[in-house]
């Protein structure tokens, strides 16, 4: 606790965006990873983003909200360690400590799995609120991996969010669905309903292929930004290492060779307010001959 003297001049510093490092007692920031459309990379992003945050020293928990179709455990490689899940905690059948799985590779990282067998409707807003409030005391970041769609599951995942990563592929159906989700972030969340500051949105364009953009058969990151009109966090390049990572159940940031992994680190740095040059948005330069004839 600081002394009260001189708090007149300190007022300016109490704006919202103070970094997490300077206030250890701040409650966790809740970040939803959402997209509307399925298969665009929400779970991959949740896994990589939370792992990178934890590796940077933030106490992070990543929660799966996809009841009945959980996959975060598989992507994180802890599927055989799941005993209790989010719904067990909500219904008092197990404690939060029993359900939280500590990652074996990364310090500060915990996984809270969704239920695979329960009915989707048993995921109540009130129950989730209790769990999130408890997690808020213990963590710096709570990452919520949303299910696809715009139904109750997706709304529950975004409801308590302070910030949102809108994961979008440079492709028409994904962009349109992201626009729907952006509309819902502005109307269906707790921040919207209680008239608080709006959820802070970040655009993340995944599966990006600069060479196809160059050829004019893929929307550019700028195109996607123009249409969705939310702040841009970066691109994740289309990369073979993403499938390799999920095959082995290791978040892609653990692969030192992976361009996608590097891109996720850049994205996390930007999310934390650091400036990073935008990489992986241009085609690597090729020799004269291949430039002439195209490969």
């Amino acid at each position, binding site marked *: 606790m600081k002394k009260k003297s001189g708090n007149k001049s300190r007022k300016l510093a109490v704006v919202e965006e103070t970094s997490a490092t300077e206030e250890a007692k701040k409650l966790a920031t809740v970040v939803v990873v959402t997209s509307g459309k399925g298969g665009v990379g929400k779970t991959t992003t949740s896994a990589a983003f939370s792992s990178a945050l934890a590796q940077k020293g933030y106490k992070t928990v990543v929660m799966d909200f996809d009841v009945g179709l959980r996959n975060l455990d598989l992507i994180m490689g802890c599927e055989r360690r799941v005993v209790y899940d989010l719904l067990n905690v909500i219904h008092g059948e197990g404690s939060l400590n029993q359900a939280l799985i500590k990652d074996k590779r990364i310090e500060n990282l915990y996984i809270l799995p969704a239920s695979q067998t329960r009915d989707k409707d048993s995921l109540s807003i009130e129950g989730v609120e209790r769990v999130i409030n408890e997690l808020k005391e213990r963590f710096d970041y709570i990452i919520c991996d949303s299910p696809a769609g715009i139904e109750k599951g997706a709304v529950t995942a975004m409801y308590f969010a302070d910030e949102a990563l809108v994961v979008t592929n440079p492709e028409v159906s994904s962009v349109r669905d992201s626009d*729907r989700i952006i509309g819902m972030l502005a109307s269906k969340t707790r921040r919207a309903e209680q008239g608080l500051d709006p959820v802070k949105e970040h655009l993340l364009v995944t599966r990006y292929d600069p060479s196809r953009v160059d050829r*004019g058969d893929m929307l550019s990151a700028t195109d996607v930004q123009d249409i969705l009109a939310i702040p841009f966090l970066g691109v994740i390049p289309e990369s073979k290492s993403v499938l390799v990572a999920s095959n082995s159940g290791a978040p892609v940031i653990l692969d030192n060779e992976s361009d996608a992994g590097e891109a996720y680190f850049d994205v996390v740095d930007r999310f934390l307010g650091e400036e990073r040059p935008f990489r992986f948005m241009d085609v690597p330069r090729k020799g004269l001959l291949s430039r*002439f004839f195209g490969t």
Partner: protein
Amino acid sequence: MKFLDFFRSSSKRNSSSVAKERLQIIVAHERRRASSPDFLPRMQQDILAVVRKYIPIGEDQIKLSVDRSGDCEVLELNIALSETTGK
């Protein structure tokens, strides 16, 4: 633009710019609809019923919309009368 592409795609437009154009239109359309109050369809039915007491018109001859320009909202009601109903 690569040398060979010059021959390949001179006649065809980039598919990505087509995608962008289509998206801009549909997204603007859907945002407008999402931001209009949800009582609009019911109100349209009520107005239709009142008008029909006096003039026979079809469902598709009435259009109701809310447009926003700056901080001003305009409720626009359009009823098209066909030639036979005018008399």
